[in-house]
């Protein structure tokens, strides 16, 4: 078994996933070194889950080469899965068992002795701050709690690699922050995190490096900062005009800032100096209902690269 600590944990070369004629993942190249937090950022249908399922060895590779821990999922799936933790897009907790039993049973799937499962379950429930819910059934738990149980359960085999498919989608802001905090701690402990998200703030918080995915292809790769610097001016001026008049108002703004995007609900002007751009808008006599200057984000990178918003 290759245990070279410098070798990448995941290597994908021209990875393709097809469902019939439909191409869900269209020849992506990815390399994830040990200890890194790596993200797939992209809108719904980009092929993030399809990629994660191939890495998780629960979906055969259609074409290309994939290695995890240096092993081939086609022949060593069982061995790869035994060293990895998976948080799927939808929680798959066992509704017929308690929180604690969910964890213990999962450990048993990995052939971990029952007493050890119990010990780890206790420790992990403490880690996700759910000790008082150990004896609870799954059903009464909130969405955020279920997600935390799923994460705790995925750690029962002390995985070297943790796959998280949209870990916080559908959760309220507070629950998301609790989760981010826990994931950040895991990262500090040296667990390699691979996650998908369509939230730019999540990607910025958690990922050392990420790829932007769209329609099965990778359209950009780098650290969040690198991507923003490379693909978007430093600041963004967001202007809102009365409903339905964005298009005509936008034409008054020719030449303001470096670039302009007209969205259904607002006009974005990219500029190195947002305040200066706003002053120019006012000088031209344009009167938006509201104006806001903010820093460029991954959302803007995505818009720039694909012409579409991440979340619609």
């Amino acid at each position, binding site marked *: 078994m290759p245990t070279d600590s410098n070798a990448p944990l995941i290597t994908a070369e021209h990875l393709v996933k097809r*469902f019939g004629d439909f191409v869900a993942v269209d020849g992506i190249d990815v390399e994830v070194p040990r200890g890194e937090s790596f993200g797939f950022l992209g809108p719904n249908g980009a092929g993030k889950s399809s990629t994660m399922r191939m890495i*998780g060895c*629960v*979906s*055969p590779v259609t074409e290309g080469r994939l290695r995890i821990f240096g092993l081939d999922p086609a022949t060593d*799936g*069982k*061995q790869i*899965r*035994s060293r990895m933790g*998976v948080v*799927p897009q*939808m929680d*798959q*907790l*066992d*509704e*017929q*068992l*308690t929180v604690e*039993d969910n964890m*213990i*049973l*999962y450990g*048993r*799937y*990995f*052939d971990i002795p029952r007493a050890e499962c119990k010990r780890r379950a206790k420790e992990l429930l403490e880690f996700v701050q759910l000790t008082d819910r150990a004896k609870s059934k799954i059903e009464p738990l909130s969405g955020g709690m279920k997600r935390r149980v799923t994460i705790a359960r995925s750690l029962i*085999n002390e995985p070297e690699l943790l796959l998280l498919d949209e870990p916080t989608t559908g959760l309220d802001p507070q629950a998301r922050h609790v989760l981010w905090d826990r994931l950040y701690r895991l990262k500090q402990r040296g667990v390699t995190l691979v996650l998908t998200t369509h939230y730019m703030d999540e990607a910025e918080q958690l990922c050392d490096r990420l790829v932007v995915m769209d329609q099965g292809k990778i359209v950009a790769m780098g650290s969040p900062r690198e991507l923003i610097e490379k693909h978007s001016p430093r600041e963004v001026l967001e202007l809102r005009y009365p409903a339905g008049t964005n298009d005509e108002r936008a034409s008054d703004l020719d030449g303001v800032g470096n670039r302009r995007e007209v969205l259904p609900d607002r006009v974005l002007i990219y500029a190195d100096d947002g305040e200066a751009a706003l002053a120019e808008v006012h000088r031209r006599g344009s009167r938006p209902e509201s104006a806001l200057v903010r820093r460029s984000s991954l959302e803007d990178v995505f818009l720039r690269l694909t012409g579409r918003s991440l979340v619609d």
Partner: protein
Amino acid sequence: MITLAGLPLRIVPVQVMQATRPHRMLERQWMVNRAGGWMVLLSGFFEPLFYLLSIRVGFGALVGDVEDGGRLIPYAEFVAPALMAASAMNGALYESTMNVFFRLKYDKVYDAALATPLTSGDVALGEIGYATIRGALYSSAFLVTMWALGMTSSAWAIGMLPVAILISFAFSAIGMAATTYMRSWADFEYVPSIMLPMFLFSATFYPLSSYGDWQWVVQISPLYHGVAMTRSLNLGEWSWAFGGHLVVLVAMALFGVTLTAKRIERLLLP
């Protein structure tokens, strides 16, 4: 599993050959039942008692003896082994249809298991194994009741138990395989329309000979082969046909397990 090299390697698919942890699915059931599911199993113990009492007290007195294979036997002793075979089938199908469907589509138990070192073969064998245990429990209760009511005809009757386990296994396997094709709960409405005729027309209540030219229809029914075996064991009478019935049930079991493992792979590991 290499010890089974040769013949089984060719019939049994790779998914099943590589199953090394099917017992984890049994462990799951044990944990679920420990949390309060034993009552469902218990209910299965009362059914045979009611059945057998009704036959012993009612039918037995009215019908008298039946001729089967050139020998006269009391009706109760004729019917009881057939009902035992049917109870193995029922227990197996209760578990391997609706309950499996719930775990497959709603509880996502198998999706969760397949993300771990467990494989489609483990899930198929483990779940079929549990349904088999349920069927076997029902038929054990049946056998004990039969014996207590004096409806066993020979010491060979104890051999009905392994046969009932085989019946249960074969029907669990076929039941789970069929369940993987179900799209919604509505599809389960067809299950009784297959089970009831099979229960009634598997030479359960009258000998095969009474079907005349239609015997072949009865012989198509998988339950018939189970009934023929339990009946011959109860009487302690042997014939070459026994081997034939055995082959039919073993083939059914193998086919069901194989198909189930492949279907799970297709549904859950696309």
